[in-house]
């Protein structure tokens, strides 16, 4: 297992290297300059600015410089956000995004799996149709609609929760619900399909033939087998939620990563684009590793036999 994880970490580093390289060169293809009113400056002023930020060097040299600094943990200084180091910028912003994403993911996975399971167990009853309805609504209605509705009814009309901002646990509830609708619907749909398939399989019939009760059959035999594909889709979904939903962060005024990322692209703020992108890539490969390890825990067939096979 340890050997397997080390091997995977090796692959992760290669993946990250490739992602970083690609992003670096693709980013340079974006037209425009990172500086405001660059055209109006004199030749000398431009030279000074470009020199200061190392943008005068040939591209391969810039790339080399960046990679060396990155390995040292230095992601450069933002051109736009008050010359703050990128690492500090991200560190300040990642907290709310990660918290919101994680909360939404947990709520989404738990509720979605629950809905999917009961829908499968009560197939073609009003419970099933109700769960399907929630799933369809959650998937087809964009999160900002939920956000708006929640803000209007729960906060403005009823006054139960704050409308926006990010000042404590009660502020996180509405954005979490708005953001969780999507993972709920995804988990519910997958779970229902998988459960129905698993419940129709031979080993469930055998479990019934053993005299197992309905509860034992659904929880002990079916659930674990049905979870495998659900874990697959939920992993990458978790990353996209954690790294911030731009819209939700905007609507609720949450100081998160998503907002900053889009701004940095619009302004050609190279170091911030690079930094955020590297962060996304790291999160992504880490989540994929976690998903693979989870597979092994759920399904012994995929369990990685690091020379342990008997």
């Amino acid at each position, binding site marked *: 297992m340890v050997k397997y994880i080390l091997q995977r970490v090796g692959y992760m580093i290669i993946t990250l290297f490739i992602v970083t390289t690609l992003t670096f060169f693709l980013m340079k293809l974006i037209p425009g300059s990172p500086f405001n009113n660059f055209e109006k400056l004199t030749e000398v002023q431009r030279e000074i600015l470009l020199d200061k930020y190392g943008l005068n060097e040939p591209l391969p040299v810039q790339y080399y410089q960046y990679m060396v600094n990155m390995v040292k943990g230095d992601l450069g200084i933002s051109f736009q956000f008050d010359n703050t180091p990128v690492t500090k910028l991200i560190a300040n912003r990642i907290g709310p995004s990660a918290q919101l994403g994680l909360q939404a993911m947990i709520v989404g996975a738990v509720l979605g799996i629950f809905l999917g399971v009961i829908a499968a167990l009560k197939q073609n009853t009003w419970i099933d149709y109700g769960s399907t309805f929630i799933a369809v609504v959650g998937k087809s209605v964009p999160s900002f609609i939920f956000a708006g509705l929640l803000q209007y009814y729960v906060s403005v009309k009823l006054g139960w929760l704050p409308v926006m901002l990010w000042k404590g646990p009660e502020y996180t509830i509405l954005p979490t619900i708005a953001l969780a609708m999507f993972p709920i619907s995804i988990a519910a749909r997958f779970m229902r399909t998988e459960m129905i398939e698993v419940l129709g399989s031979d080993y469930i019939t055998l479990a019934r033939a053993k005299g197992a009760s309905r509860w034992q059959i659904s929880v002990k035999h079916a659930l674990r087998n049905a979870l495998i594909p659900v874990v697959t889709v939920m992993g990458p979904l978790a990353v996209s939620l954690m790294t911030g939903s731009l819209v939700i962060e905007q609507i609720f005024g949450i100081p998160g990563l998503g907002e900053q990322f889009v701004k940095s692209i619009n302004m050609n703020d190279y170091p911030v684009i690079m930094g955020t992108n590297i962060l996304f890539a790291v999160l992504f490969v880490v989540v994929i590793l976690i998903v693979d390890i989870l597979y092994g825990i759920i399904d012994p067939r995929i369990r990685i036999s690091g020379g342990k096979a*008997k």
Partner: protein
Amino acid sequence: MEKILEVKDLRISFHTFSGEVQAIRGVNFDLYYGETLAIVGESGSGKSVTTKSIMRLLPENNSEIKSGQILFDGKDLTKLKDKDMQKIRGKDISMIFQDPMTSLNPTMKIGNQIMEPLIKHQNMSRHAAKERAIDLLKLVGIPKPEIRVDQYPHQFSGGMRQRVVIAIALACNPKVLIADEPTTALDVTIQAQILELMKDLQKKIDTSIIFITHDLGVVANVADRVAVMYGGKIVEIGTADEIFYNPQHPYTWGLISSMPDMDTDDEELFSIPGTPPDLLEPPKGDAFAPRNPYVMKIDLEQEPPFFKVSDTHYAATWLLHPDAPKVEPPEAVKRRQSQYQGTVGVGNGVALEKDKFPGKKEGK
């Protein structure tokens, strides 16, 4: 001979979008203590549905027991509540399924899967159940059971998995064991091993077996009695010798003729022409009539009743009616009939090796 299970006039339908499929149309049979009853027939003849209904394992949403009784231990299984049925499944009646590759839970240790019925029905502690699981694995011939008990199904071969399924089925010493084509998915050498194992275990734990198969070779190997099913009905039932050496129903003739025979040098393998009846609209007369080379007018109009051939042998064909013309059965059947007449005093083991299996009670 005491009966352990009685199936009386069982009728089962499936409700589908195209209408009501009458899968079982009045099935009657008894199962005696310690015997092996084979149910043979082609796909769709209703053999699996019959046995699944005994276990009450038919899908609840679209199947319906229209009428009939399944008497076990004085109880009518068709009337039991699901909770009470759970107490019988796996304890008094258990089942072995066709495909060992899919009938074990892939994410559960073998040991836990065997322990489940023990803990449920015999209130064993986990520790005691595990000991028993190891014993059971040893019983079904799995080497190193102490290690194997903690392994998962994917670490076992097909034959080994079927042994595990048998261990699960036998865990609580059931009175009735239903084997639904237990060897169909296995290759021939493993088939023989599994059949050998089942015969061996039947002796040890003294259970009655209902053995479903479409393989007459397997039937000859294991069965004391044979019921032949066609179109949702039993068309002929008798001892294994009677069915193999003195068959009466034209469908049984067809089945026997289509068995490859080592004694003749027939190049071509016989097959029964036509297709099974559509049970959405079951035929009026004998369901086999359209495929029957000996068909008579009455076959198309009226269903044949059971005619008695001997105390143990019945067949539902109008050919046995006193007024019916004498017909010549196919060559393969005639050969067998002449063997049978030469060996009256059933059970001397000429071809069926019957004397190898104690527990056989008929014909003595």
